[in-house]
């Protein structure tokens, strides 16, 4: 009995130590809070909405018939329930992959042109990035609920988990090298441990994100790609099943927590 009590106290002490905010991180949190009130990500929301509604592409169609999983054209709450299984393509897709799919099937764009320069630079923000920002904003304040009902959704989660733990490359790295341990950091950037549900939310929170350094909008597709680059892995295909699988693993781990909409990064 006494031993159990001691163990209990120890566990509480450990939890408290893990939660003590690092003073540098606390300052950045304050900074981020102020910046969030006027987040330039909203400019991309406005632009993304315009791109969603306007007839575009070789087929001169809008994306208003795009099915994000809640029925054609339903955007509200769709982002919080992705990645999910889509019967028409018989695979699990994350939000950006689905948007790319809709741009190809409804508007007639080609994958090759969308995948050529899929990430934002100083001079150019690709359309899918703006659109995913608009779609994500329509789930602001909602609980994450990436479904795990279809067998393929469960398979994709397991695939994502396998990728997350897979060690390879010239540095013998895996995602867990940085994101599987508590209290890690890269320079001043604290790294969340995504294997724990309470920290897994940070894989979703703040994305898509406006990065103040450079003033560009980045999506989760970019984040996954850049983690691959930092691990010295070959780049995953843009909007590929690999990225959807990783995002399934990360989002499902964070299920039930509230998504606060597009964020801001320093």
């Amino acid at each position, binding site marked *: 009995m006494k031993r159990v009590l001691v163990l209990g106290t120890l566990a509480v002490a450990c939890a408290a130590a893990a939660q003590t905010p690092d003073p540098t991180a606390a300052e950045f949190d304050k900074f981020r809070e102020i910046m969030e*009130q*006027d987040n*330039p990500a*909203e*400019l991309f*929301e*406005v*632009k993304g909405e*315009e791109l969603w509604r306007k007839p575009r592409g070789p087929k001169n169609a809008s994306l208003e018939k795009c099915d994000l999983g809640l029925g054609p054209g339903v955007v509200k709450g769709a982002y919080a329930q992705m990645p999910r299984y889509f019967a028409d393509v018989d695979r699990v897709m994350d939000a950006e992959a689905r948007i790319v799919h809709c741009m190809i099937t409804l508007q007639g764009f080609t994958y090759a042109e969308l995948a050529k320069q899929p990430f934002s630079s*100083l*001079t150019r923000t690709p359309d899918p990035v703006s659109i995913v920002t608009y779609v994500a904003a329509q789930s602001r304040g909602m609980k994450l609920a990436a479904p795990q009902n279809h067998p393929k959704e469960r398979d994709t989660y397991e695939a994502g988990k396998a990728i997350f733990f897979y060690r390879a490359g010239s540095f013998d790295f895996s995602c867990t090298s940085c994101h599987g341990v508590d209290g890690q950091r890269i320079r001043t950037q604290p790294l969340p441990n995504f294997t724990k549900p309470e920290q897994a939310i940070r894989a979703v929170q703040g994305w898509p994100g*406006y990065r103040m350094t450079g*003033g560009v909008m980045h999506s989760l597709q970019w984040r996954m790609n850049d983690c691959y680059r930092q691990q010295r892995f070959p780049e995953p295909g843009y909007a590929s099943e690999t990225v959807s699988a990783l995002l399934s693993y990360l989002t499902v781990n964070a299920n039930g927590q509230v998504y606060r909409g597009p964020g801001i990064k320093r």
Partner: protein
Amino acid sequence: MAEPMKIRATLQGDVADVRVLMAHPMETGQRKDAAGKLVPLHFIQTITGQLNGKTVFTADVSQAVSRNPVFAFKVKGAKAGDKLSVTWQDNTGDKRTDEVVIRAGS
């Protein structure tokens, strides 16, 4: 090139709190591109705020202001439902105007 602004105008008493987010590269003219060439100066020079068509706010802006800048100002004597528009003009002559209806504050 000019992309839409995001304007929020909320009433607090008879003072409207206006916050404007603008999409603009705000190039200082001192940055070099990948090829080593100077990126030409490109920045917002003037900002004008109008309440029901009457100018209530003007600002001269320099190239020292950040990319995608935020501006905030207060307008006295505004009512809910009033139209508030904001216009910027940059050094290349490019312009953008957006308008919102002032909302009653909580």
